[in-house]
C-alpha cells in the first residue's frame, strides 16, 4: 500500500525516509523479511542494501509491483487483509507493516497474522492522538486534515486510525510483547524514550513498534 496519508520526511544526507531508517535499525542483518504493503519497494531495497536481508513483499497496486520487479524484488500482488492467511507460521524473521495498518479492514486480524508469520513484527503508523488532530476534532469540530493526513473523510484510504495508546492496547489484546517503541516528532526525529506515553501520544506524529509474540 503506498503511503496512505503521509508525506514522508526524508533524511537530507541519504535521501531515505526517516521512518524507513528507523525500521531498518530494528532489523538484524541477513534476516528474512516480509514487507506487507511494500509500495514501490523503497524500504525493501534499503533493507537489502544496508542489512543484506532476504526480502519479500506484498503490494496491492500493479504500479507498485511493477516498480518492485524492476528493482529485482520478489513482490506479490495481493491484499494484506486476505492474503496473509496463506503464509505458513514462522516463515520470516520480521514481518513489516509500514504505514499500512490504518488502511486495512481488520487491523487486529492483520496484526495477529504478522505475529504468526514472523518471529517479530515491525509496525509503523501515523498517530491519530497527535495534538493537531485533537485540535481539528476538539476545537474545530472537523475531521482532521493535516499535511500528514491530506485526505477528506469520504475519500481517505485510512479507515482504521488509531492513537499510540490505542495501539499499545491492541498489542496487549493480541498478546504481543513490545520490544522497542519509537515515536517520531513533527520533524521526523525520534522522541526521548524517557518521556511518558501521554507525551508521545500528544507530540508523536508517527510511531514505530518492534513486537514479539509472547
Amino acid at each position, binding site marked *: 500500500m503506498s503511503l496512505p496519508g503521509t508525506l514522508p520526511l526524508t533524511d537530507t544526507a541519504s535521501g531515505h525516509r526517516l521512518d524507513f531508517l528507523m525500521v531498518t535499525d530494528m532489523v538484524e542483518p541477513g534476516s528474512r523479511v516480509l514487507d506487507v504493503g511494500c509500495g514501490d519497494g523503497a524500504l525493501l531495497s534499503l533493507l537489502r542494501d544496508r542489512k543484506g536481508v532476504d526480502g*519479500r513483499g506484498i503490494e496491492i497496486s*500493479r504500479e507498485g509491483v511493477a516498480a518492485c*520487479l*524492476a*528493482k*529485482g524484488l520478489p513482490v*506479490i500482488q495481493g491484499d494484506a487483509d486476505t492474503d496473509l492467511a*496463506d*503464509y505458513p507460521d514462522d*516463515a520470516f524473521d520480521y514481518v513489516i507493516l509500514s504505514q499500512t495498518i490504518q488502511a486495512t479492514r481488520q487491523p487486529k486480524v492483520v496484526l495477529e497474522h504478522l505475529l504468526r508469520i514472523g518471529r517479530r513484527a515491525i509496525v509503523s503508523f501515523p498517530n491519530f492522538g497527535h495534538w493537531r488532530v485533537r485540535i481539528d476534532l476538539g476545537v474545530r469540530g472537523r475531521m482532521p486534515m493535516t499535511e500528514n493526513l491530506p485526505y477528506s473523510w469520504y475519500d481517505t484510504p485510512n479507515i482504521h486510525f488509531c492513537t499510540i495508546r490505542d495501539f499499545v492496547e491492541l498489542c496487549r489484546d493480541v498478546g504481543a510483547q513490545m520490544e522497542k517503541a519509537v515515536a517520531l516528532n513533527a520533524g521526523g526525529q525520534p522522541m526521548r524514550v524517557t518521556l511518558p506515553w501521554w507525551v508521545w501520544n500528544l507530540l508523536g506524529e508517527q510511531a514505530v513498534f518492534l513486537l514479539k509474540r509472547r
Partner: protein
Amino acid sequence: MFVDATASPQYRLFERTNVSADNMSFAPLVSEPRSQVDDPSSLVMRFGQDEPLMMDAGIALAPWQIAYQTYGTLNETKSNAVLICHALTGDQHVANDNPVTGKPGWWLTMVGPGRPVDTNRFFVICANVIGGCMGTTGPASINPATGQPYALDFPVVTVPDMVRAQAALIDRLGIEKLFCVVGGSMGGMQVLQWAVSYPDRVFSALPIATAARHSAQNIAFHEVGRQAVMADPEWRGGRYLNEGTRPSKGLAVARMGAHITYLSEVALHRKFGRNFQDRAAPTFSFDADFQIESYLRYQGIAFVERFDANSYLYVTRAMDYFDIAAEHGGSLAKAFKGTPTRFCVISFTSDWLFPTSDSRAIVHALNAAAASVAFVEVESDKGHDAFLLEEPEMFAAARGFIDAAARVRGIA
C-alpha cells in the same frame, strides 16, 4: 497458435475468403501438415537407439528427435540461455516466420531484439514438444519398427516427458543451467515442471497464464475436442495417414470449441457482437449468418492445415494428466521445497481457462516453500489469449523480472 480475432492477419485473410457454405468446405492443402514431421525446416537434435527418452507411460522411446530453433549467441560461460516453452498447438518457430503457414513467429512481442527476452543479450532456445507434429517425434512420425506412422501406437505423452526431452536437448547443447525458462499456458506448465524436475538447472522461471494442475473444466473441454476428432469417420481409428484420409472436420470442430475458451465474453462481444457476416438479415438457414460463426469456421479450417489430428489428441492429453502436487503427496509446496529458482508468475484478469486463482495457488505454494516469487495479475479483457498479445503490463513485468535476474546472474 491461437490468434487475436481482429488484430491478426488471419482474420483479414478470412474476410476475403468466402466461408459461407452450408457446411465447412476444405480446400486442397496448401502444404501437407506432415511435411515438417521427419525433416523439419529447423534445427533437429537426433537421439539414437542407445539414448532412449524414458517416458512416464513406461516406454523407452528410441530413436527419437527434437526439432528446435535458436536465436542470439550463447556466451562463453554459457550462462545466458533462455528456454521458451510453447503452448498446446505452438511450435519452435517463436521468433521467425512459420514454414507451414508463412506467418510471423508466434511470440514476437516477447522474444526478439530489444524485447523482454532480448535476443541481443540472451541465447534463446525453443523446441517443439514431444508428441508434436513440427519435427519432434510424435504420432505422425514414422515408427521404425513398422515403417508406418506411429498413430496411436505412440506412447501417451506427459508434460514431464516434454521437459525430459528438452533437458536432453539442453545437455547436448552443453548448457548446464538455463538462465530462464519462459512459457504461457501449456508452456507455463513446462516451466513449472522444469523447476520441479531440475531445480538446480533453472536460475529463473516465468510461468504465465498457467496452472500447477489441469482443472476438471479444462479436461472436459479437451475431451469434447478429442471426441470431435475421433467421431470423424476419416480419423479411421487414428490410421488416417496410412489410409490417405484426414479427419479435417473433426479437428476443425475441436479447434472451434477450444478457440472459444481462449477468448473472453467481453472480447467476443466487442469484436463480433451479433453482427451479420456479409448480409443484412438472417437467411433462415444454418449458414454462417453471424460473424462469430464465420470466424470460428475460419479458425477451424486454418488449424487443420497446419496441425496433425493425432498430435492434438496427445498434447491435450498431456495437459490433462498434469498435476504437480499429485506427484508430491498432494502438496504443491513440497514439490517446490528448497527450490533455488527465482519465480515470476503472471495471470490475466479475464482469463477463465487458467484463472488468477490457479496462479495464486502456485504463488501460495512457492511462499510456503520459502521460494523467491513475484506475482502480477495483469488487467486485460482479452481472455487466455492475452499472453500472446500486446499487453504492456505483462511486458513491463517480464522485463523487470528478467533484467533484475540477469544482473544477479552477471549477464551483460
